[in-house]
């Protein structure tokens, strides 16, 4: 079952052709990883999936991106509702400068949840899902800026989960973290796969190999190869993929 489909998609930043004719289907409750060298367009594609690229001036998209068969670039699409359904975790942890509790409650409050008991329940559930509840349950009212970088990133995942998204986009979520925090986030991603469709951009090929069901390899704005992760890392079809995953460039 495909959750997100990308058809004949081209993306321009002004005159720069950043993504060239991309076709890709991402399965429901699977982890799809985008790999490739810097500047290959993988983050750009990720940000197109919840229309965060709308913020970039001069960004133009042709082709079609569908979520459950619905074109997300259609005029009738409510962008805020789309972003509620397609959550995002950024490269650098970006907790808001408020308490841990308020960080998690931010999304639900934005979408109209006012009931204190309901909010308490969402906060606890989200923090548990992000495997950080036990570490922060005694300091929910303390500033979110006071916890470690790895904890902040899991807090951001919890914050994204609090609005009950269907898809979770992760843009190099571990590149600013130490190895122990990284492995926690990877375990978490595998755990979350049961309930969510996950798309992750990563620089770290081992990470893709460890957690992703499917992997897409990008180079200079083109998708070179896409398929089951195991197969791609053992028998890549394209010589360029092989060069990259064996570390000959990138």
């Amino acid at each position: 079952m495909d959750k997100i489909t990308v058809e004949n998609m081209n993306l321009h930043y002004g005159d720069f052709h950043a993504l060239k004719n991309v076709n890709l289907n991402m399965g429901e409750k699977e982890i799809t990883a985008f790999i490739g060298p810097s500047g290959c367009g993988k983050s750009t594609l990720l940000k197109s999936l919840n229309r965060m690229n709308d913020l970039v001036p001069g960004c133009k998209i042709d082709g079609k991106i569908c979520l459950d068969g619905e074109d997300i670039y259609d005029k009738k699409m409510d962008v805020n509702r789309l972003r509620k359904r397609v959550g995002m975790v950024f490269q650098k942890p970006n907790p808001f400068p408020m308490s841990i509790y308020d960080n998690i409650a931010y999304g639900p409050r934005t979408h109209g949840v006012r009931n204190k008991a309901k909010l308490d329940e969402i906060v606890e559930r989200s923090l548990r899902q992000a495997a950080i509840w036990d570490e922060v349950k005694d300091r929910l009212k303390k500033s979110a800026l006071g916890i470690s970088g790895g904890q902040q990133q899991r807090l951001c995942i919890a914050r994204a989960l609090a609005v009950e998204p269907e898809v979770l986009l992760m843009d190099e979520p571990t590149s600013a973290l130490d190895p122990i925090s990284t492995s926690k986030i990877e375990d978490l991603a595998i755990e979350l796969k049961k309930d969510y469709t996950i798309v992750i951009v990563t620089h770290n090929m081992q990470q893709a190999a460890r957690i992703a069901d499917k992997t897409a390899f990008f180079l200079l704005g083109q998708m070179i190869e896409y398929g089951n992760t195991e197969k791609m890392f053992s028998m890549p079809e394209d010589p360029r993929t092989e060069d990259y995953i064996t570390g000959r460039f990138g």
Partner: protein
Amino acid sequence: MKSNYIRETVMKVIFFIAACASIFAVILICVFLFANGIPAMGEIGFFKFLLGTEWRPSNDIYGILPMILGSIYVTAGAIVIGVPIALLTAIFLAYFCPKKIYKFCKSGINLMAGIPSVVYGFFGLVLMVPMIKSIFNIRSGSTMLTAAILLAIMVLPTIVGVTEASLESVPQSYYEGALALGATHSQSVFFTMVPAAKSGIVTGVVLGIGRVIGETMAVIMVAGNQAVMPEGLLSGVRTMTANIVLEMGYASGLHREALIATGVVLFVFILIINLIVAALKKGAIQHGD
């Protein structure tokens, strides 16, 4: 080698003297104020001076409570009226203003900061005083309300400038984080960016208070200046600054010293405000990342 050393030393001395000049001025002002003002407070009686409700120099009665309250009321009024306008203006400039009109708005506000206060006063005297008089149907339009409105206008550039700068220093990643949760542009701005800039905004407001409380010329021209306990929004008031400037010309002896002592009180007010600003800035540095 030797000439280099001499040049360095000479430069150092010049810089040091330049730095000393401003410090020296501040110290001189403090010494002058306190040396002339404190004895008068002693002579009049410290509490009689601060809490006395009557100011009658001809009878040697010097109570400045009416002026202290006058300053506080006018300042409070200006802040109540000015802060919401200034905050919304700064938020508009930082997040909602179309690029095409931004420059126009921004230079307009900068220009406001450059207008001499006597011009504001004149504007208030000619336009606002008659307007207040006819709107409320009162004998004189020179009231606390008039002064508060005029000062609210005058304080806009200070608060808008500081607030806008602090809004713009909030990391863009907060904004993106809020959008990614499905918040709209205005929700992201009001519930994420503005709270994140809180300490900068408070600093702007406190700086604004300092600016208002020290304002003299414009206030004199619209406030009525009666040296009596303020009775309400539509009665005249005299601020501490007005008190000094109105009577300095002809005062002598204890009267003159009482005016200087008024300056001491004003100075202490400003000092407290500066300390608050410094404390807020320190807090902002510790919280920010």
